[in-house]
């Protein structure tokens, strides 16, 4: 890794605003954790902790009374809870995609946004894990799903996709947390070295593990980081594939399709990028990160949203086609029912938000316009929630025999748990912004022109310094 001069013929520019020094990067990122939080932070924090409190009360009431307080009932036994689970897990996926997949593809513009989106992954997975835990009804028996001896002398059924989910999601959470922490260690060292008071020095010093920027360490560190990226890439694809198996391996019309794994993964990346965009625009504006997170970064993210949004649109169309082509009357009915049945409004909201709204990003004017991308990112998140709702509820409410049909409507507790999970997410995220370096300081420095040891002088006399150009950082093209 390292820095490569932007190729002028390709109209490339630097990843960080020109003239920015290493010390400025340190300062811009670290000062957020050192100064008093801005008033807006306190307002948002107040709101989100209050909402988290509501979540706590709701869950308390739910556990006391039973999950009958939710609207789920036969035949719609999975409703908002599983919708929220899949929605949150999907949001988490963009973090891993940005930190791992873009790393392997040497897309170095990721350095500005990876810390941020990895944090988002962790908090989103925490919110996601909450829902199946509560939905199981008696969370204190959750250890039944683990391969440990229990009083029934039985082992878990490893042929169940729900059990695969337990392994997939908990592995995903653990690996994301490790990846995030490894990335944070050098930046913790920066905060430790800047710390003015003893308490800060002690805390950040403790988590920095005594990091001293040693190149002997960097050598192993970079290798471990590369391996983690290589592990996370198939992992992230597997997680949403396994989540989709929960549906695809059932014999429910509308669920039993082979397109589900890729379709779920594309949707996950799509919604995750939208959530990163929403959060990033707020943080960039509040904390003045314009030199590190440039319009160009946002534009590239919008292009990814356009791509994944169109992939999702293709999947919607293909599902319909296969439902007709299969010749299965139940399958046909479920899809016609989706578009024109009781929940037509959810289906068409989904199409409008997920397929039509990202098409705005074909136009450069719109994909470089901050208010437009902010609104579209929120619209996409709404749309992706509707997607999961449509898949889950419309398939269940009218499946085979009309005598077994039913309808679903949420109760106030469905709504409070969902809104409450947003509160939990934002509380965690705001604490992250306040106390941890929200941009990967060391990684941003690495892609700056001054990071190149061969910059400007003295190169001719050291003919033995080999540059492996295949691994050098490609600079970013800018029209």
């Amino acid at each position, binding site marked *: 890794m390292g820095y490569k001069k932007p190729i002028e013929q390709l109209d490339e520019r630097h990843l960080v605003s020109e003239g920015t020094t290493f010390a400025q990067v340190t300062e811009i990122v670290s000062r957020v954790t050192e100064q008093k939080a801005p008033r807006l932070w306190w307002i948002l924090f107040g709101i989100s902790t209050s909402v988290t409190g509501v979540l706590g009360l709701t869950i308390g009431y739910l556990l006391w009374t039973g999950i009958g307080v939710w609207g789920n009932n036969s035949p719609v036994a999975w409703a908002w809870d599983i919708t929220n689970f899949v929605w949150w897990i999907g949001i988490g996926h963009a973090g891993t995609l940005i930190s791992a997949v873009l790393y392997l593809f040497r897309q170095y513009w990721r350095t500005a946004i990876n810390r941020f989106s990895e944090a988002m992954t962790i908090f989103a997975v925490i919110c996601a894990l909450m829902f199946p835990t509560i939905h199981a009804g008696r969370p204190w028996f959750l250890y039944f799903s683990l391969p440990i001896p229990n009083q029934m002398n039985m082992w878990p059924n490893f042929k169940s996709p729900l059990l695969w989910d337990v392994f997939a999601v908990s592995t995903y959470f653990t690996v994301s947390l490790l990846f995030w922490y490894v990335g944070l260690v050098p930046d913790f060292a920066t905060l430790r070295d800047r710390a003015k008071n003893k308490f800060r020095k002690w805390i950040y010093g403790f988590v920095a593990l005594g990091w001293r920027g040693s190149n002997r360490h*960097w050598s192993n560190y970079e290798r471990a980081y590369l391996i983690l990226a290589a592990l996370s890439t198939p992992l992230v694809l597997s997680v949403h594939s396994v989540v989709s198996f929960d549906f695809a391996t059932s014999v429910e019309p509308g669920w039993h399709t082979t397109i589900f794994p890729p379709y779920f993964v594309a949707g996950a990346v799509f919604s995750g990028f939208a959530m990163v965009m929403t959060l990033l625009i707020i943080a960039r504006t509040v904390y003045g990160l314009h030199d590190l997170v440039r319009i160009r970064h946002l534009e590239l993210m919008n292009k990814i949203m356009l791509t994944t949004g169109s992939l999702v649109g293709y999947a919607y169309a293909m599902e319909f086609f296969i439902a007709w082509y299969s010749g299965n009357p139940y399958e046909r009915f479920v899809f016609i029912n989706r578009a024109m049945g009781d929940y037509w409004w959810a289906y068409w909201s989904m199409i409008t938000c997920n397929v039509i709204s990202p098409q705005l990003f074909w136009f450069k004017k719109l994909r470089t316009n901050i208010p437009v991308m902010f609104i579209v990112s929120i619209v996409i998140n709404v749309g992706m929630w509707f997607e999961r709702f449509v898949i889950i509820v419309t398939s269940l409410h009218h499946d085979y025999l009309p005598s077994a049909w039913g309808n679903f409507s949420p109760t106030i507790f469905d709504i409070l748990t969902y809104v409450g999970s947003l509160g939990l997410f934002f509380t965690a995220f705001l604490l992250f912004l306040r106390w941890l370096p929200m941009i990967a300081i060391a990684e941003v420095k690495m892609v700056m022109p001054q990071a190149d040891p061969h910059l400007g002088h003295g190169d001719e006399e050291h003919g033995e310094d080999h540059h492996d150009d295949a691994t050098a950082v490609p600079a970013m093209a800018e029209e």
Partner: protein
Amino acid sequence: MASESQKKGAQSPETRPLLFLAEYETAGDVFHAAEHVRDAGYEKWDVHTPFPVHGMDKAMGLKDSKVAWIVLVMGLTGCTTAFLMMWWMNGHDYPLVIGGKPGFSLPSMIPVMFELTVLLSAFGAVFGMLGINQLPKHWHPVFFSDRFERCSDDRFFISIEAADPKFDLEETKALLEGTHPSHVELISEEVEQ
């Protein structure tokens, strides 16, 4: 310049040198200095940078990292453990007949085998890396220097330890001063009497 910011070095005559610390302003300077130290044949020395400098492993003459081998072993362990666990639990110890499926069936074991492979490999990568690097280690002579605080900001350092067989108060200092550092200091500790 030597021994000015060391721990109370001036008052106590009984000090023992720990390492020389040279500071550089740019990545290029420290890169070329590292090549000189490498060519001079030192072994117990290190380069300290705020970010990994491209090509520095070669400039220091380091061998390839061994982390990948740990990951390989851990990954194979994870995969085997998952297979044996599921075979024993569902296929041997207490087969459950659900949906008429056989107790032991490889296709349904793939997801869990994959997840445990990834999980243990990730543990191997992170804890293996920390183990090889001997971290956490909160005590190190470089932290005695006040200037070293900028190592995680925008300065670059080379440290040569006194434990190195070639270490010599005069020669090592001369070598470092010949590599255009912005500052050279000797870090010592007090010897208890």
